[in-house]
């Protein structure tokens, strides 16, 4: 399960957040991660 998208902050909160921020994943990237997880689950691990 992917984390919820980060809420949009404004004003002083946003400035404080940006100080530590990194590029948020795009919708396309998030979707690709979800798909990867789905595919991973379908592959069977042999012991």
């Amino acid at each position: 399960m992917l984390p919820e998208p980060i809420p949009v902050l404004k004003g002083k909160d946003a400035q404080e957040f940006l100080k530590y921020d990194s590029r948020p994943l795009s919708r396309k990237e998030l979707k690709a991660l979800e798909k990867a997880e789905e595919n991973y689950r379908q592959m069977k691990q042999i012991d």
Partner: protein
Amino acid sequence: MTIRPSDLSYRKLRAEDDLSTLDFTQKNGTDPAGLQEFISKEALEYQQERLGITHVFFYGSGPVAFATVSMGDIPVDRMQASEKVALAEDITSYPCLLIGRLGVHKPFRDRNVGRRICDWTVTTARRYSLEIGCRYVMVRAVKDSVGFYQKCHFECNPANLSKDKVWMYRRVI
């Protein structure tokens, strides 16, 4: 015919495995990444020395591909500027899962096996990242493989595209 994820199974390389009869060379017969040599002679020793763990992927009961992975790090200056984390501005590289080798047996190329393995590495890295810092999956791709990794959502710094091997990465968190 496309291979579905549910058609594939995987496990770690074993001493009794013999993948030397499979063909991991390029269409023109060359092997710029040294896959054939590696899987035939070195993979097991790498695994025993914990330099890289090789996972073999099966279609039915037959092996069709392998991926060797290890911990790694990717220099920040090999990435696009947008990847920088402000919090960690003094860090010169970010932790990643490194795809050291990835090979698909020739008859199974262009059937999505490689993409499934990339999905496997990405999800494996995401899961490990909860226990050990890991932000990317990374590969040093030979020129002929750059297009494949781009299709698998890997990125690179365009300034490095002219190099013999291109540092490519995909965020996993």
